[in-house]
C-alpha cells in the first residue's frame, strides 16, 4: 500500500526547501506535494484539472497550510475545506510565521486541527516536523479516506 503524501500549501520557495529538508532529516516516509497558492491547494484537494489523476496526485493524509498565500489565503482555503463534506475531516495544521492572535483565533474558529508557528532555526523546525510526524502521521487515528 502506498503511503499517502502530505500536502504543503506554501508559496515561499525557501520555506519549501527548509521544510522539505526537515522532512528528510526526520526521515518521514510520506512524500510532500506542494501547492504554491491557495487555488492550487483547493484544486489539488478537489481533484480538479490535472489533479484529477490521483495516481500522480494522491489524496493527502494531512495538510500543512501557510496563511499568507497568493490568490486564496490560507484562512480561505481552510474555510473552504471545512465546508466540503468529503474533505472536512482531513487534519489541517497551520504552519505560518504569524503569531497574530486574530489569525490564531480565526483559524481555530474555522476548525483548524492545530496551529504551529514557523520556528526560527532549522533545528527547531526539524524538531517540530518530527513531532508533527509522530503525532499526526503515526499516533493520530486518521478519519479515513473520503473517496
Amino acid at each position, binding site marked *: 500500500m502506498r503511503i499517502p503524501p502530505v500536502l504543503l500549501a506554501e508559496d515561499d520557495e525557501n520555506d519549501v526547501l527548509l521544510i522539505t529538508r526537515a522532512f528528510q532529516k526526520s526521515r518521514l516516509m510520506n512524500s510532500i506535494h506542494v501547492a504554491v497558492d491557495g487555488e492550487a491547494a483547493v484544486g489539488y484537494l478537489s481533484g480538479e484539472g490535472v489533479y484529477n489523476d490521483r495516481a500522480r496526485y494522491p489524496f493527502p493524509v494531512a495538510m500543512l497550510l501557510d496563511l499568507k498565500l497568493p490568490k486564496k489565503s490560507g484562512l480561505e482555503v481552510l474555510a473552504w475545506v471545512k465546508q466540503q463534506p468529503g474533505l472536512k475531516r482531513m487534519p489541517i495544521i497551520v504552519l505560518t510565521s504569524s503569531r497574530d492572535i486574530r489569525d490564531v483565533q480565526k483559524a481555530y474558529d474555522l476548525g483548524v486541527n492545530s496551529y504551529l508557528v514557523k520556528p*526560527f532555526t*532549522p533545528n527547531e523546525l526539524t524538531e517540530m516536523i518530527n513531532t508533527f510526524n509522530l503525532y499526526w502521521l503515526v499516533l493520530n487515528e486518521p478519519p479515513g479516506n473520503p473517496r
Partner: protein
Amino acid sequence: MAERRPTEHLSSVLGSADSSKLQPQPQDHMADGSGNAHEHDRLAAIVSSSNDAIIGIDLDGTIESWNQAAERLYGYSEAEVLHKNISLLVPPDRLGEMHRVLERIRRGQRVEHFEAVRVAKDGRLRQVSISVSPVYEGGRIVGAATIVRDNSERKRLEEQSRQYTKRLELLHEMDRKILQHESARECAEFVIRQLVSMVALPRATITVIDFNAGKARSLVSYAKGEFSHGIDYPLEPLMGPELSEALRQGKTSIMDLASLQQVEGLERLQRAESRYVCVVPMHVQNELIGSLNLGARTHELFSEEVLVLARELGDQLAVSIQQEALRNQIQRHAAELEQRVADRTKELAEANAALETFSYSVSHDLRAPLRTMQGFTEALLEDHAPQLDPVGQDYARRVAEAARRLDRLIQDLLSYSRLSQGKVHLEPLDLHAVVREVLLDFAMELEQQKIEVTVEQPSLTVLGHQGTLIQVLGNLVNNAAKFVDPERKPQIRIKAEGFYDRMVRVWVEDNGIGIAPEHQERIFQIFERLSNRYPGTGTGLAIVRKGAERMGGRVGVVSQPGAGSRFWVELPKPPSA
C-alpha cells in the same frame, strides 16, 4: 301741584338722615307748617353740598330739583334741566328701565343702588349707582328723590384692574411657555389667539425680520381662523424706510395698506377687511428682531388695551424667538462637534487599522527573509561544514547571528508599538501572582546564571493590565540579569511597598554594574544603549516605561556605577484597596 322750591321739596323728604321719614307719615306731621326754618336751611345746605347728585322728580319724571353734584356729574346746570324730563339723562335703550323705576315709585316702593348708565351733556356715558325713594306729601306720593353716585371712576379702575390681571395672566402664561421651551411658533400662535379673542381681528402675522438679508419670514400667519407658517417675503415694499425706522425706535405704527403703492399680491390685502395694519415692534435686548402685525377693517379696533397687550406679548415672544434661535444654534454646534468627533474617531480608527496592518506585515514579511537567512546559514553549517574552512564557518555564524539579532529587534519593536496601540483594560492585579509568573518565565536563565532572587512582598494589589505588567516586570528582571558585575555573585531582589495612599511601588534591585546618574534618563528611551558589551536592542527599558505609562504609572531608577541599580515601577492601587 303747588309750585315749590326744589330744596323745599327735598328737605321735606330728607328731613332727617333717618330713612324712616320716607315712610308714609300722618299728614299733620309732614304738613307741620310751623316746621322750623333753621332745620330747613341746614338740610338744604346738606343737599346742595352733597357729593352725590340728588335730583328731585315728580311722578312723570319731570326734574324738580338739581344739586351741584348733579351739575358736576351730568354737565347740565340747574337752569338747563329744571322742568325737563329725567329721560334726558337716560340712553334710549334704557328708557324701559326708567319707566319701571317710576312705576315702582308710584306703588310706594324704593329702588336702591341699582347700577345704571346715564348720558352726560357732552354725550359721554356715566356709570352710576342710583337709589330712588318716593316722596310723600299729605300721605300721597307726589314724586321721587333720586340719589345718584358717580361710579365711572370706580368702574374705570375696576376695568383697569381686570385688564391688568388679564395681562399679568397672559404674560405669566407666556413665561411658562418660554420656560418649558415651547417652540416659538406655539408661543406665536398663543399670542395671536389671545389678541384675536380680545378684538375680532381678521388677520395677524408674526414676522421675524432679517434686516441684513433684507428678508422677512412669517413665523405664524393668522387669517380668518386659520394659521399658516413660514412664508418668506421681501421687506420691501411692506416695510418702507419710515416703518422700519419707527420699528427700530420701538414705535408702534398703524398703516393703511391702501396708501401703499400698488404691488402685485398686495391688492387683495389692500381691499380686504384688514386694510389697516398695526405693526408692533418686537425687541429683545434692544435689538429689533421682528414685528407683530395686526390687520383690521378700521384702525379704531386698535384700542390702547390691545396695543399695550400686543407690545408686552410681542416682547415676550421676541424672547421666545431668540431663545429658540440660540437653542437651534447650540444644537447645530453640538451636531457639528459630534460629526467632527465621529470623523476624527473614524480617521483614528483607520490610522490604527493601517498601523496594525503595517505591524502585521512587518512581523510576517520582514521576518520571513530573516528566517530564511538564518535557516540556510545554519543548514550550510550543519550540512556542509566539511567544505568550509574555519574562517568560512565563522562568517556563516556571523550571518546567522546578525539575522537572529535583527529578528529580535523586530519583535521588540513590535511589542513596543503594540503597547502604544489600542485600549489597555485596567483591573486589580495580585502582585504576588504576577511576580511569580515573571520569575517562572525567566527560571531557566536565572538558574543558568546562578542568580539569587529574593522576593520581599507584602501581598499588594495594583490596578494594571496583566499582560503589560508581566512585560514590564519581565524586562526589568531581564535587565537585572543582563548587566551583572563579573566580580560579584549576582543577586536580584524584588520588593513592593505602598507609596503614599494611592500608589504601589515595585522595586527590582540588582547588584550589577550600575548606571551613572547622567545616563539614568536616557536609558528609558528607545534604542538607547550604554554599552555594546551586552546584547540587546535598546528597547527593553523603553517598553518598561511605555507599559507603566499605559497603566497610569511611572518608572524610575536609583543607581550608582558599581553599586547596582534599583529600578522602580509605580502603579495605582485599585479604588477600593
